[in-house]
């Protein structure tokens, strides 16, 4: 069984949003409002319960190293964001119903027939991907097109992408392709191109990684994400100590009170 991944190359993205539309249509995702954000050409704003692919429009003031040569023109970078399908996924660990599972393809999948909408995955995702759909009550996010992958097809967004910016395939092959691409771009003088994939953090790498230019935080891709399970030891130690203090404290207080009685 191969472990699959998305490799999204922002230098090839033209901001057409075909991925957003393909995702919505294939998965039957409802609209989540028609708002004007005023943020560049991005009225989608962010990933959420009803947005599983989101094209970011990162604008820069003219700046050396970002490709803009004219002092009067902005530079523009687009990048299609998606659930990261973490190797150590906060949502999956935290899910109390076992609704969120790891599929045979390595993706993280919410089984809609199990989810009871407790909302704990929302606060344990280090990337703000999962959210609860208010009128439905359940949590939703990218399914990694589990249904399509089962049938040997590539996810809808990757298939619809006209420039090859969204690449889908075997995880290790894509990692090699990403390294080759970086070498090529650096050779062309685009030295700020870099791969975002938090392999050296507690998240342990992702099944969706990105080639971006400059600091990845401009794309809301955090440099040091942390899977919340790393806090469990500290939390439960404190809870055990607190419980002990409560038990001893009340026994002690009543034992002292006994003398007075």
């Amino acid at each position: 069984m191969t472990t699959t991944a998305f490799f999204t190359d922002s230098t090839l993205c033209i901001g057409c949003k075909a991925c957003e539309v393909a995702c919505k249509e294939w998965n039957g995702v409802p609209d989540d409002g028609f708002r004007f954000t005023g943020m560049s050409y991005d009225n989608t704003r962010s990933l959420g319960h009803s947005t599983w692919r989101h094209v970011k429009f990162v604008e820069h003031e003219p700046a050396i190293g970002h490709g803009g040569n004219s002092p009067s023109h902005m530079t523009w970078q687009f990048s299609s964001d998606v659930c990261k399908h973490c190797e150590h996924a906060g949502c999956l660990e935290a899910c109390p119903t076992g609704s969120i599972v790891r599929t045979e393809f390595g993706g993280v999948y919410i089984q809609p027939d199990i989810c009871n909408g407790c909302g704990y995955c929302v606060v344990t995702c280090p990337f703000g991907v999962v959210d609860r759909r208010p009128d439905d009550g359940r949590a939703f996010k990218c399914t990694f097109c589990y249904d399509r992958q089962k049938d040997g097809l590539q996810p809808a967004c990757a298939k619809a992408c006209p420039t090859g910016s969204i690449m889908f395939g075997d995880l290790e092959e894509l990692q090699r392709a990403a390294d080759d691409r970086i070498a090529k771009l650096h050779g062309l003088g685009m030295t700020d191109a870099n791969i975002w994939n938090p392999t050296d953090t507690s998240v342990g790498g992702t099944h969706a990684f990105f080639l971006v230019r400059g600091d990845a935080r401009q794309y809301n891709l955090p440099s040091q994400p942390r899977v919340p399970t790393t806090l469990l030891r500290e939390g439960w130690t404190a809870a055990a100590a607190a419980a002990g203090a409560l038990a001893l404290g009340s026994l002690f207080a009543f034992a002292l009170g006994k003398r007075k009685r």
Partner: protein
Amino acid sequence: MIDERRLDELREEAARTGSVAGALLRYYDVPLLKPPVWTWEVPAYFFVGGAAGVSAMLAVAARTTGADPRLVKDARWMAAIGAVISGPLLIADLGRPERFLNMLRVFKPQSPMSVGAWILTAFGTFSAATAGADLLRFPRVADIAGILSAASGLGMATYTGVLLGATAIPAWAEHVSLLPFHFGASALGAAVSVLQLRGHDDSALTALGIGVAVFETVAAVSTEKSITMKAAELLSGPVPLALRILGMKSKRAKRAAAAATLLGSLLTRLAWVEEGKTSAEKT
């Protein structure tokens, strides 16, 4: 705005590091994280469940030291009634309440929510058994069930701190080792206060009340305080502390201190959940 000096700065930075960070290190005003979707039922559950849990412990402490049997009975019933209220509060907050039993199809030690669901199940069972045995006059059964109820009750009072702490929300995660203590102390304050408002005047309750008020006064740590948090800290710490020490002999002062602690305990949970929402929006 961009001027010549900014261009010079950019050139220097680019020459030095090979690239420039750019002005924005975030994506417009879009927060990285999603705020908690929980509504008032969850903090209300923390409050009721915590107070009920500690009540079970107080019942055991009172029983083993031969305190007033009426105090033991009241504390046992507070545990059982609190457990009965806790369940519906937690279920009401689910997006799909009719599926609440799905919580019990797995046990996941790595999920504080899963551990909590099982703690509540155990506590509900044992606290009801204690009250039931008490009612039917099976004292030995009530005592054994009471100990099990207290053990799970201590879990009820403290696990909610881990539930908030072990998340991606910065304001909660930063306080992961404080929250179980804070919630536990707050639960103890609430349980003691309910017993005092019921008219119990054991000196142990007074001592525990002062202990909690001291802890709450010292442990008021959260940095960016909302109005709710400030009110919660005031009503849990300094106000009851002053009332309990200055009004040692006065019944009215004691009742006022108990009422303040109770309100402070509820506000503490509301404030922490609110803090989480604000914190997520600032990411």
